[in-house]
């Protein structure tokens, strides 16, 4: 079973627990927001006590972190409220510490929280994916119309992380005071949010205050939306975000999913018919030839004879053409 629907939940209603997993040391406490019992992946609000230190090392799962309050020192650099980190699996962070304590949002995507002490990255770490940013100071707010149909004006975003394959996103969003949007929405993806500050309202769930949280599986109705005094939150989706808007509050997730498929059928009928036909009942997923096609590899030079600048091919390409039947004899 994946993460269940947790909505609404407010971390202010529960107490911190001591982190007992090895590697995190003393002085780390957490409130569990949502949890995948299969993989151990989870979202937690975390309190680090004053004087907390964690040795350099990496996680087996990728991790996302956001400083909610206080200051976190990462390898000698001071990171303040709003600082966001995307840390790939196996990427060794330097020592982290906090002099006066801090609050973090701590998200693991593919496994339970783990910390393997190490001064160097794991051999499989995709180190080039690492990035961090002071999201409050160094990214401007942009219109929330990252997808169409779009949210109403007054819902703004700052994109923090984007997966170009799945189109999963992590982003800050805010609602301006007196924001309202009168529709009901659902998505083809799971959605998660943690309220860093402020209160928003949804017609199904009521008010979500500071510390409010949801993990919502795909196809679940949410909205209409409003925020009287405004709010700022960290949001995530696990694949492409599309807003299916409607105004029937009594539909079920199954009906919503069927409507998504019906809309796909209306928009891309040829692809839809092919995908659902029994002749193409792939057990895993359709094959993307770009993932499997034969490539040249490291062999040098055996490219087109004719170059785009009109010149002829320069004949050293690392092998000869004396093979029988070859058109080339050189």
């Amino acid at each position, binding site marked *: 079973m994946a993460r269940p*629907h947790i909505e609404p939940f407010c971390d202010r209603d529960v107490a911190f627990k001591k982190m*007992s997993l090895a590697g995190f040391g003393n002085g780390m406490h957490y409130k569990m927001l949502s*949890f995948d019992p299969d993989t151990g992946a989870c979202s937690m609000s975390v309190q680090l006590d004053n004087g907390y230190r964690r040795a350099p090392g990496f996680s087996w799962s990728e991790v996302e972190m956001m400083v909610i309050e206080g200051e976190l020192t990462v390898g000698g650099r001071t990171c303040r409220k709003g600082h966001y980190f995307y840390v*790939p699996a196996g990427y060794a962070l330097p020592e982290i510490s906090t002099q006066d304590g801090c609050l973090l949002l701590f998200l693991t995507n593919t*496994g339970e929280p783990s910390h393997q002490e190490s001064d160097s990255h794991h051999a499989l*770490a995709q180190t080039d994916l690492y990035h961090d940013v002071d999201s409050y100071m160094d990214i401007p707010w942009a219109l929330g119309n990252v997808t169409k149909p779009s*949210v109403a004006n007054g819902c703004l975003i700052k994109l923090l992380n984007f997966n170009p394959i799945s189109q999963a996103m992590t982003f800050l969003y805010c609602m301006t005071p007196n924001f309202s949007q*009168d529709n009901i929405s659902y998505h083809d993806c799971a959605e998660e949010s943690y309220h860093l500050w402020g209160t928003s309202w949804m017609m*199904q769930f009521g008010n979500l205050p500071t510390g409010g949280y949801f993990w919502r599986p*795909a196809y679940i109705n949410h909205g209409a939306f409003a925020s009287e005094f405004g709010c700022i939150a960290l949001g995530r989706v696990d694949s492409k975000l599309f807003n299916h808007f409607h105004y029937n509050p009594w539909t079920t997730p199954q009906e919503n999913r069927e409507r998504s498929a019906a809309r796909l059928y209306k928009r891309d009928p040829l692809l839809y018919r092919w995908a659902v036909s029994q002749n193409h009942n792939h057990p895993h997923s359709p094959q993307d030839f770009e993932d499997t096609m034969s490539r040249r590899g490291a062999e040098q030079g055996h490219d087109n004879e004719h170059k785009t600048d009109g010149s002829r091919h320069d004949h050293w390409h690392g092998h000869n053409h004396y093979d029988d039947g070859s058109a080339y004899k050189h």
Partner: protein
Amino acid sequence: MTFKHTSIEHTRNAKEEEWIAEEAAEQELRFKNIQQAMKDLSTQREKWYQEFFDRISTRGFNEDGDQKIQIAPEDLPTKPEGREDQVVWRCGADDE
């Protein structure tokens, strides 16, 4: 469903397995509390639904961004007979 990103395979130890079992049990309780709280909100929610219908048939329904259309009262939906109002779904569309 999890976020489709990277991970590196490793073997969990007994302590980690125990932690996962404890968190799973606590989440079960958290889910049941939320389910009950949302059932308790159903009378209030019914009023919110009616107010929503009033707004989208007068001020308008947000079709795309701030673009609004008024929904004709005769086009407003009715609650399917015998259907309980439900807003929390453990596994979304995969609920049994």
